[in-house]
């Protein structure tokens, strides 16, 4: 019954990965320019919109898209649903890569990255009122935790194929992991609970600049709930893509059950979102101006996958599942973009649209992420193997 994870194998360099490598290369050149010339010369960031594409996409949306490891871990370890075990490793890999890329984006986005190391070490100077400090510390810690959670995939391989020293290291590493697993996994659930909600709290400091349809003390709860839904959606999305590309079993039945959990979380999100706005007397703003249209577009993107998956029988149909998950991801991304950029209005004199450099670097960061994903699943036991015949979708 248990699908053992196996490396996919095959050459890492092919036409597609070479193309990705080219995109990464362009980013490297652009980033050299960014560090030599400063942010003004290379980005569209300005004093009114100090947070731009790199923060909204790579960090805020990117870490939510990297919540697969978190969302599956909740089901697997807290709700004790052992059947989801084949999903955890690929989910952890996308999470580890997503969070690493977010950390990288922060390094290129901040003006003085050479001082970042001071944030974790200057404990006495910590401003505990700063939501961003909480996010920064949690994200730094969580990147480490994710790679540790994923470590058995690498250690297993080295144990089998490594020579002398590497094999002994792998064996002792696996033994350590077996003992410390509870504490590591708990940390892997605690940290995202903290910082995914705080990513919402961050924008509360925008105060009057954040539109009233988005500015609510429940932002942290909404960010937390939606990131869990996005976590499930990304697992379904990734299964679809890696199933098609690598011909791996898709676990449709399992994903259908997972989407049931997603439906519950999605419904919770919409109930909180609407109840909050209605109870705070902001109903009128829902039918007011251009922001109202944006709000409804966002809500529709959340509601459509909910409707698509509300019927248990339709959840068994993989294409429906895949489409609903994709819409769900769009919804979560849009909600984050709105909160950080579109519904943030510093005054009429300011405008922001990302520069070509910002866009190309973002493309490069995503390319690197995909490239590393392909390389790792081809060499290390991440995806469930073909132990059983692939299920029919």
């Amino acid at each position, binding site marked *: 019954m248990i699908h053992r994870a196996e490396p996919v194998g095959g050459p890492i360099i092919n036409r597609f990965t070479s193309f990705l490598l080219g995109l990464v290369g362009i980013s490297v050149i652009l980033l050299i320019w960014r560090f030599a010339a400063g942010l003004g010369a290379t980005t569209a960031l300005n004093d009114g919109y100090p947070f731009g594409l790199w923060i909204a996409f790579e960090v805020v949306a990117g870490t939510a898209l990297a919540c697969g490891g978190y969302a599956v871990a909740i089901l697997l370890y807290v709700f004790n649903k052992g059947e989801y075990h084949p999903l955890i490793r690929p989910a952890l890999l996308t999470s580890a890569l997503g969070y690493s890329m977010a950390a990288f984006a922060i390094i290129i986005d901040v*003006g003085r990255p050479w001082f970042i190391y001071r944030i974790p070490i200057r404990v006495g100077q910590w401003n505990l009122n700063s939501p*961003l400090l909480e996010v920064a510390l949690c994200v730094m810690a969580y990147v480490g935790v994710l790679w540790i959670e994923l470590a058995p995939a690498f250690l297993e391989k080295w144990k089998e194929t490594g020579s002398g020293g590497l094999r002994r290291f792998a064996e002792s590493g696996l033994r350590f992991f077996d003992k410390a697993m509870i504490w590591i996994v708990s940390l892997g659930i605690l940290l995202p609970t903290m910082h995914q909600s705080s990513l919402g709290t961050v924008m509360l400091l925008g105060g009057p600049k954040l539109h009233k349809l988005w500015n609510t*003390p429940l932002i942290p709860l909404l960010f937390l709930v939606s990131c869990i839904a996005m976590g499930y959606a990304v697992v379904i999305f990734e299964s679809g893509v890696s199933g098609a590309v690598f011909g791996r079993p898709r676990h449709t039945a399992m994903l259908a059950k997972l989407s049931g959990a997603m439906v519950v979380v999605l419904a919770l999100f919409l109930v909180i979102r609407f109840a909050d706005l209605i109870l705070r007397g902001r109903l009128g703003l829902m039918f007011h101006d251009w922001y109202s249209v944006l709000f409804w577009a966002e809500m529709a993107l959340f509601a459509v996958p909910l409707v698509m998956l509300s019927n248990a029988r339709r959840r068994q149909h993989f294409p429906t599942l895949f489409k609903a998950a994709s819409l769900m991801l769009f919804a979560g991304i849009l909600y984050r973009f709105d909160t950080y950029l579109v519904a943030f209005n510093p005054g009429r004199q300011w405008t922001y649209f990302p520069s070509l450099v910002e866009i190309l670097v973002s493309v490069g960061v995503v390319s690197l992420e995909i490239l590393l994903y392909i390389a790792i699943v081809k060499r290390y036991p991440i995806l469930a193997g073909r132990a059983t015949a692939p299920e029919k979708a």
Partner: protein
Amino acid sequence: MSVDRRTLLKGLVVGGAAAAAGPAEASEARRPEAPPDAVGMLYDATLCIGCKTCVVACREANGLPPETPEWTEGLWDAPPGLDEYTKNIIQLYREGDEQSYVKHQCMHCLDPGCVNACMIGALQKRDFGIVTWESDRCIGCRYCQVACPFEVPKFEFHSANPKIVKCELCIHRIKEGKQPACCEVCPRGAIIYGTYDMLLEEAHRRIEASPDRYIQKVYGETDGGGTQVLYISHVPFEKLGFPQGLGDEPVGKMARDVQHGVYKGFIAPTVLYAVLAGVIWRNRRSAGEEESS
């Protein structure tokens, strides 16, 4: 096992409820108070003639270069607003027959959004309640810019080693026993320097002495939790470029109430961690029993 899934869920629900109820329950003591040594400035829009002497003096006192946009053929210092080279600006607001100059610089809030935002305290209220920036603690994240309702902190976007640029009330001059450069040079006494208490009293005295001349409000007395730079004017303040919908609460208050309401110091995360570990331990043990049986 005393700790089970239900306890955990209950914990999560209570946490969520605390997040929801936070602002109402965990509300802080009234409005922030000025530090005992607080100094500030009072700007009287009825006196200002827009000569911009203060803008030039600010440049000299703070070693900032003039800004000569192309349309001035490189001849005049004409900054469009506060920016990475300009910590103090005079702007004209005109609507029909009504017009007024207004001076903008850091408001030195009693409970500043930027200070609330700053991760390791690069921006802090230091001596005299003046909000100053310490290079050594800044990573250039620009969260202060998001958090400032007055759009004051500016970032050196032109630089590969950028700093935050903002009015620090000429603290270097104050420590030498002088006043801020803008106050010293103003030929009309439109901007004056003093202790916070004295300035607040003077603002009210002027309004009471000539009620026809002024709008009946001292801007900054309560706005955004109160500021150490105060304004009196003959035109409504919303026409002078002050933020709309700011209210009397400090911008950081809601975020603090939510964050501390949920975290309760660091108790909530610690408890959650322990509960998670307990649940996972129990689940794992029962799974092990099933396998061995």
